[in-house]
């Protein structure tokens, strides 16, 4: 193919089809930038809407009393349901991650990863139905059933996130520990887990943030409550924020709308703080590991 002749002595301004190529390149760049800004804008608009409508509802009474004035029991309920879910999912998730990175052969590891990804893709309503059939049908709703469903949602997130940081632990450390006549499990406890701890906590906090807002399973598993009293009994249906938002926004009373926005603000603030905090923690642990 022949490249068009050019005069090497001509001034170094665009010539030939360079003008067109530059226009295309600029167009692509603008397109990508606009798409990125769009994502930021969606988040900003959602946060703005929630803050603008919910801020009016916020008060100490709102945060600490039960219905009809506040959502105190729902906040406590969500905290407890998520805490129990974390207690179930975190040890299991970390053990799964350790199995995949430290003990499993290549093929089993790949299968395990695929399984976790599929589990992660399960619709939460299906998980809710499953736990409903397991723990609620022929029995009664309970906060614990909600915790089990949230734990199933959190499990792949924790396992995959932990696995990523465990893979960042340099192979040389495992080899060095092996060469010292230390058994693998000792190495895991004394060397690998401490190195990866920051990342594992990050994955857990992100999973907590995700689970705290899950609504579908809780509508099936922990939604029959009056929300007047603080309850800390996970054997009973527990008030919780997502279901409260759902129920308040269904009310005919405009007061209920405001409280629904207020509850949304509480939830979104928690999730944002948790996510941003987790990212900061993650950045720190990465720095520590690479230094």
């Amino acid at each position, binding site marked *: 193919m022949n490249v068009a002749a050019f005069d090497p002595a001509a001034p170094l301004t665009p010539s030939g089809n360079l003008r067109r190529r530059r226009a295309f390149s600029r167009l692509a760049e603008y397109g990508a930038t606009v798409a990125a800004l769009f994502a930021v804008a969606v988040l900003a608009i959602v946060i703005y809407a929630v803050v603008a409508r919910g801020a009016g509802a916020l008060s100490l009474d709102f945060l600490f009393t039960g219905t009809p004035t506040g959502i105190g029991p729902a906040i406590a309920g969500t905290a407890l349901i998520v805490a129990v879910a974390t207690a179930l999912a975190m040890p299991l998730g970390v053990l799964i991650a350790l199995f995949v990175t430290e003990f499993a052969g290549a093929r089993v590891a790949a299968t395990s990863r695929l399984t976790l990804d599929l589990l992660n893709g399960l619709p939460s309503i299906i998980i809710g139905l499953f736990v409903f059939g397991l723990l609620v049908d022929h029995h009664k709703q309970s906060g614990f059933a909600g915790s089990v469903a949230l734990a199933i949602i959190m499990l792949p997130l924790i396992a995959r996130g932990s696995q990523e940081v465990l893979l960042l632990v340099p192979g040389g450390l495992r*080899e060095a*520990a*092996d*060469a*010292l*006549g*230390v058994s693998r499990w000792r190495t895991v406890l004394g060397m690998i887990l401490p190195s990866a701890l920051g990342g594992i906590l990050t994955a857990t906090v992100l999973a907590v943030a995700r689970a705290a807002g899950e609504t579908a399973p809780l509508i099936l598993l922990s939604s029959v409550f009056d929300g007047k009293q603080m309850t800390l009994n996970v054997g009973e249906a527990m008030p919780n924020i997502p279901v409260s938002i759902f129920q308040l926004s269904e009310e005919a009373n405009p007061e209920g709308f405001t409280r629904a926005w207020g509850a949304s603000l509480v939830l979104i603030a928690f999730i944002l703080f948790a996510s941003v905090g987790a990212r900061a923690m993650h950045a720190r642990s990465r720095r520590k*590991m690479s230094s």
Partner: protein
Amino acid sequence: MNLAEQTQSASASPAVPARTASSRVRIQSEPQADPRANGHRSKVAVEAVFEVNDVSVFYGAKKALAGVSLRIPRSRITALIGPSGCGKSTFIRSLNRMNDSVAAFRLEGQVLYHGHDLYASNVDQVEVRRRIGMVFQKPNPFPKSIYDNVAWAPRNLGFRHGLDEQVEKALRGAALWDEVKDRLKDSALGLSGGQQQRLCIARAIAIEPDVLLLDEPASALDPIATASIEDLMHSLKGRFTIVIVTHNMQQAARVADETAFFGLDSSSGEPAGTLIEYADTETIFNRPADPRTRDYVTGRFG
């Protein structure tokens, strides 16, 4: 084995370059000083730590090492030299079963360690490595304090009492004590490359193994750090049986009692690494029997 004497001699002279110089003089004069090392020493006279009988190593279908037989004598330094890709690292890693974690690794033949088959079905890898320590090419200290790097393995083995003394002894043994004694709680990652490698050696000798395998311990280090590692090997000699892989022939000539020359053998089709010649270092470097050894040690390759 009297560790106190060894550590004292290791820490007696203060400056690294000076010690290096003196130890080079010592190694050069050693063949005269040590009657066993003089001329045609009978290898049967010295107790063997490893007896390797016709060992071949495969990674999947690929043959990495073919038909190696040799005896590694006790309390001496044995160097493995040869060009890249001729199976030296594969061989040394087969001596403490580090290759077991490599997928599709397979070993044929027999490796006897003090008469025990290293690859027998009832042999525990952890026990093997507790006795046969290893230091790797790239310094790989744990992301812990200097103290904890050394103390971690002894602690896991159940040593609780006198751990401080144990750590000091290991660090003195690795000629690192004077440089780090005031900052034992600092991160080991803050040490220089040469110090990190000596820390790795201290870590390996802290559990008092029988054998120390060194896989190109100085290849990632500058000449001064290399000199201090070599010097260290002289001070560790006698305390441990040492096997060292090195690309650096001068290093082998300076530190080793015995030298094994590995090369590629293409006689049976696909080329695989193999042992070409094994003798005392003086013979390998001055009167090699095999022309390939002669070409390699004199710098004429191929």
